[in-house]
Structure formats: structure tokens, C-alpha cells
């Protein structure tokens, strides 16, 4: 059996509060998280906000070490950020605002010392792939939110990583743009077949994109509640099967949301 591209084995992450009245207190964000993603698979990590989805992605990316368990990429423990795992970040703070679209997409190639002619070709290909022709010389602040996310996607694809880690990449976009971006991503993924870890709190988004959906429990001590395969053909649309799956996931998620709301109200009543 081939090694999975990403394997998380009973990983946990604890944070120590650095400020505030309860300074020094430990907060268990993630506990005993296990899942794996095989090569070329699109896994959606779905969970209520604040459950530690981003923390989990950052551990796979190598930005944050796990406090317990291990994170393996192709069988090797993750030691830090690496070129094999590209990250599409939630906001646009990760874009280089002093560089144009073209220069942003070129960044990785330039750092790696790829010759200019080859660089030009790869950059043009990827700009075309994400539909940003005509905006090559624009700076990020002259682009719309959807376009900035396209720049981020082109920037990581240009580097041809094996694994794509996407942290709610469309979370800040309006519903219309989000719909278009989801279709585009689905199209791009079909042509490039990367291994993807995609974080979202949007059930429909996870159903449109994922091969499998890992539903997370509410924090603290969040973990994977269940993993559901999505046996729908692409391109996907709202049909009977879609709605059936959606009901199932919705029930699971709602249970977690209620749980986290109860925790908040308990904390309030005991604190007050």
C-alpha cells in the first residue's frame, strides 16, 4: 500500500495564554486528531469556527509544531515549512503587495533560481489557468478580493507543489464570487490533481469540492468527529444525493455548534 501524502497521528496542540487575567493557563485546542490524505485526494476539513481547523493546517504546513502526536508528510515527520506543501492563506496579508500579479506568481521560481525563459512560461501558464490575463502588471491592492485569491492560487501552482493546503481561501469573498472560485478550483484540481487539504466552515463548499469530508468537533480539545466519503461525480450540482449528504453533515455540524454555544453560555453563567 502506498504511503499517504499527509498523515496526522493522534496529534494535539496546547496553547499557553500569554496575556490577560488567566495568563499562563493552558488551552487544549486540538486533542488526539488522526486522519490521512492519500496522493491526489481532496480532503475537506469542516468544522465550526474556532475549533482549531487553521491550527491543524498550520501544523501540517510546518508553521507550528504539534504538542502531542505526529504529523507526517510522505512518511517523514514535518520539521518546518517546505516547498512540497504550498499554502493558500485565508486573507491577503500573505501576498507581497510590492510585487505585481506576475511577480507574485514568479516569486517561488525566482527564489529557486529557475532560468528566466522557463519562469516566464510557467508564470504565463498559471496566470492563464486562474484567469488573470490582463492583470499581470497590477499590484494586489488594485485587484478585487476574488482576484487576490486567484493570485495566491497561481503563486502556489507555479511552484508545482505535491500538496496544497488551503485555509478557508474563499471565506472572505461574497457569495457570488465564492461560487465562481469554487467552480474554478474544481476545474483546476481536475487538471492538476494535487493532494489538497481544504479548510472550510461551509457545508456546501465541502460537498462541492471534497473527495472526503472530515467533520471536526467543537473545541476545546477538538478532534475529528467523523470522515464521510462524497460519492458524487464532478462537476457536482445540487441533486438528491447532494441533499441527502448535506442533511447528514448538517446534523453532525449542528450538534457541534450547539455544544460550543452551550459551553459559552455555561462559561458566562458560571463567570457571572
Amino acid at each position: 500500500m502506498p504511503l499517504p501524502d499527509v498523515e496526522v497521528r493522534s496529534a494535539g496542540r496546547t496553547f499557553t495564554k500569554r496575556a490577560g487575567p488567566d495568563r499562563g493557563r493552558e488551552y487544549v485546542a486540538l486533542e488526539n486528531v488522526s486522519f490521512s490524505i492519500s496522493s491526489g485526494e481532496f480532503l475537506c476539513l469542516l468544522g465550526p469556527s474556532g475549533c482549531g481547523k487553521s491550527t491543524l493546517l498550520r501544523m501540517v504546513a510546518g508553521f507550528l509544531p504539534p504538542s502531542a502526536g505526529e504529523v507526517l508528510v510522505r512518511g517523514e515527520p514535518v520539521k518546518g515549512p517546505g516547498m512540497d506543501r504550498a499554502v493558500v492563506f485565508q486573507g491577503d496579508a500573505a501576498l507581497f503587495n510590492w510585487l505585481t500579479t506576475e511577480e507574485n506568481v514568479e516569486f517561488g521560481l525566482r527564489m529557486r533560481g529557475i532560468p528566466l525563459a522557463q519562469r516566464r512560461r510557467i508564470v504565463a501558464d498559471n496566470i492563464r489557468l486562474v484567469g488573470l490575463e490582463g492583470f499581470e502588471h497590477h499590484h494586489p491592492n488594485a485587484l478585487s478580493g476574488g482576484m487576490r485569491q486567484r493570485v495566491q492560487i497561481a503563486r502556489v501552482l507555479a511552484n508545482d507543489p505535491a500538496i496544497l493546503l488551503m485555509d478557508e481561501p474563499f471565506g472572505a469573498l461574497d457569495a457570488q464570487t465564492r461560487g465562481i472560485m469554487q467552480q474554478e478550483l474544481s476545474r483546476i484540481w481536475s487538471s492538476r490533481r494535487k493532494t489538497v487539504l481544504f479548510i472550510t466552515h461551509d457545508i456546501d463548499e465541502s460537498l462541492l469540492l471534497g473527495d472526503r469530508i472530515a467533520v471536526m468537533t467543537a473545541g476545546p480539545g477538538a478532534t475529528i468527529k467523523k470522515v464521510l466519503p462524497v460519492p458524487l461525480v464532478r462537476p457536482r450540482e445540487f441533486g438528491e444525493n447532494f441533499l441527502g449528504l448535506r442533511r447528514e453533515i448538517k446534523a453532525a455540524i449542528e450538534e457541534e455548534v450547539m455544544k460550543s454555544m452551550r459551553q459559552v453560555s455555561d462559561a458566562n453563567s458560571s463567570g457571572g
Partner: protein
Amino acid sequence: MQRTAIFAVSLVCALLVWSLLAWWVAKPAFLPSPVKTFDGAIELIRSGELQADIAVSFARIIVGFALGTLIGIPLGLLMGMSPLMRTFMDPYVEFFRFIPPIAFVSLAVIWFGLGETSKIVLIVYTTVFMVAINTMIGVLGVEPDKRFAALCLGANERQVFVHVVIPAVVPNIVTGMKIAMGNSFMTVVSAEMVAAKSGVGFLIFNSRLFLLTEWIFVGIITLGVMGFITDRALRILAATLLKRYDVRL
């Protein structure tokens, strides 16, 4: 167009108020009229004294400012990048923050004499301080995701520093330079008043001895114009050369 018109009207208003006040006071040695001040300026220009003083003051500012910036940027980057360096420098930053360069004028004269060096050293001091602190704040403010993104794209630590940190910090450096430029003017004038034989500050201070109040006015107005021109020059330079870094002044 409209802006220029309002600007002109504003200037005329100021001249009118000044003229009225001068006429009402009626003591040229106390408050010279705009006309008398203008005559004073012509007199100073004819003798070549004003140009010489401007040149001397400008030269001091430019040399001190340039040297200070050249030292301040790397120092600020170092303080931003290295927690050890930051902690090491912290007591000095907190201490010297409250000491204006003017406080060091006498000391500068004792150590470096009445010549150019003492003034330049003082300007270097104020510039290094402002530029280094603003640069450091900039480095500390670089979004961690920018560094992470670069690392994921295959950059090494050195490349992250050169291609991410430095470009991201350019706006902060320019802000520091702008504040430092204002401080340099204050510093050079105060230094020239206390210990110099030339410069606009010297002109202002020396005119007092002869009760040539209109010359004092000429000196003050000259300073304002010099500052205005320098600030504009800095803005235009930043807007053209550093356009891509999104420098806002």
C-alpha cells in the same frame, strides 16, 4: 487649480494680517512689516549672506541625514530581526528617547569643536534614532504569513530577509526618514544658534545682537521654505522611486 487659488488667497490673508499688526504696533524693531522684511531679504541676498547661510545649513542637514539614514536602517533591521539585539539596545532607546539633540549641543561643541563636525554629529544622532526605531517597528510588524508564504515557496531565511522583510519595511523606513528630516532642521538651527559662525540659525541669532528684527524674520521664513521644499522633494522621490512599496506620506 482651485487648490492653487485657495493657497494664494491664504498667503495674501497672512500678509494682510501681518501688515496690519506691524502698522498698529508701529515699532519696526519689535515687529517689522512685510515690506521691511522683504527689503531685508533683498539686502541679505545682495550681500550673498543668505545664500551662503542656506547652503551651509542644507549641507549640514544633508550630510548628517544621509549618514544617519545609512546607519539607522541596518541598525533598525538588526534590532527588528534579533531579539538579543533588541533587548540589548532597549535601555538605550528608552533612555535617549527623552533627550532631544539640543541637549547635546554644548557637549558636541566640547567634543567636536565649533566646526562642521559637531552639527553633523547631532543630526546623525537624531536621524539614526528615528530611522532605526521606525525600521525596527516595521520589521516587527511584518505579517508572519508573508514569511511563511515565502518559506513555502522555497525561499531560504536569507531570501526571506532580502525579498520579503526589507521590501515590507520600506514604508516604515520612509516614515522614519520623514520625521528625522523635521528633527534635523530643529537640530541644525539650535546648534547654529549656540555654536556656529554660519548657517540660517546663526543668521537668526546674530541679527538679534544688532536688533535687526527683519533679518530674524527673513531667517525664520527661509527655514519654513527650506523645510517645505525638502518635504516636497522627499515626497516626490518616495512617490516615484518607491511607488510599488505603497509608501504613504
